[in-house]
């Protein structure tokens, strides 16, 4: 049997089923692309939403992630798990958006979503002894979003990837293009900042 070329069987990432879907899309299988979208769109949406703090913007940016994936498909060659690659693209797009709007600030009136409904943020009043006040779930969500948004960009990203997306230190390091040691340091500082921010409500 005559072979022109054969697949590189030594690529470790070929065992990743998501990589398989991406390669199938590369061969023209549009259904495979939709499988990837259905799996990762909600995850990346939440990642970006927690990072930029705006739902509509997060939807646009998440769509942008998949537009870039679509356009890059013809030259795609697996060098990591597909998940890592997608998070890297999402991270870059989110960072670019924040830096594009250089004086971007979170409006305290920006709605935060809880239980599918939007609600206005509530700024924690330091004069109120919050542990005595019974916080509603919606208020807690608002306080959490404010606390996360108050973190520096890299700490924020590390916290979201670790706390909500359950990525390992190695996966976070790959997505953020840094070392595991740097990721641990970021998380340590982020946790201290969050402790300081949330101590009045805990």
């Amino acid at each position, binding site marked *: *049997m*005559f*072979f*022109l*070329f054969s*697949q590189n069987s030594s690529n470790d990432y070929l065992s990743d089923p998501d990589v398989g879907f991406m*390669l199938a899309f*590369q*061969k*023209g*299988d549009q259904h495979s692309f*939709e499988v990837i*979208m*259905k799996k990762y*769109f*909600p995850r990346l*949406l*939440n990642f970006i*939403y*927690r990072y930029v703090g705006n*739902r509509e913007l997060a*939807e646009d940016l*998440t*769509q942008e992630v*998949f*537009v870039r994936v*679509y*356009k890059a*498909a*013809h030259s795609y060659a697996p060098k990591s798990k597909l998940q890592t690659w997608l998070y890297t693209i999402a991270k870059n797009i989110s960072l670019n958006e924040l830096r594009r709007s250089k004086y971007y600030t979170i409006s305290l009136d920006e709605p*935060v*979503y*809880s*239980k*599918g409904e939007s609600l206005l943020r509530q700024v924690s009043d330091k004069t109120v002894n919050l542990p005595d006040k019974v916080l509603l*779930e919606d208020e*807690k*969500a608002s*306080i*959490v*979003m404010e*606390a*996360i948004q108050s973190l520096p960009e890299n700490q924020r990203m590390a*916290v979201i990837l670790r*706390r*909500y997306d359950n990525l390992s230190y190695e996966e976070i390091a790959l997505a953020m293009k840094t070392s595991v040691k740097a990721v*641990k340091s970021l*998380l*340590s500082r982020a*946790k*201290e900042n*969050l*402790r300081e*921010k*949330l*101590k009045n*409500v*805990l």
Partner: protein
Amino acid sequence: MECKKVRIFLSDYLEDDLEPAEKESVGAHLGVCEGCRQHAELLKKSWEFLGHLETIQPSEGYISRFWTRISQEVPWHEKWLVSLRGLLNFRKLSPAYTSALVLLIIGLFSVWTFYQAKDSEFALANLSDSDIEMIEYIELAENIDIIDELDILVDFDIIENVAIEDLERT
């Protein structure tokens, strides 16, 4: 271990990501230091408190909106090329597909050669007598250099004359 040093390790301690010796040292310090113990407790609670931020769902029709955007942003010929690239991805051609492709190329070449030969036959069949005579003269002229090199014509001449003389003698 001092409080300042323990607090550096607290995050990893809570994640159970310390070497056994370090873990034991931190654990021992927390057992006797109320301040660090409360600090660790707040770190843990604030991390858990982040869970109050719920997950949101994509708005309806996000996939169809995506394809609409693709149809607007990606030119039709690029979309067509996406499919074609998949078909002609030489890095991943299967053996059967490769064989079929080679046979197709050979087949096309054979058909081309056949029609080339037919064209030549047609041309030859339609030559006039004067064209044929000219071709013969051309062939002769092409060979004249070779003929000049030979003494064979002289030999033929001798043989011819000898034969006639012998015949006359007998």
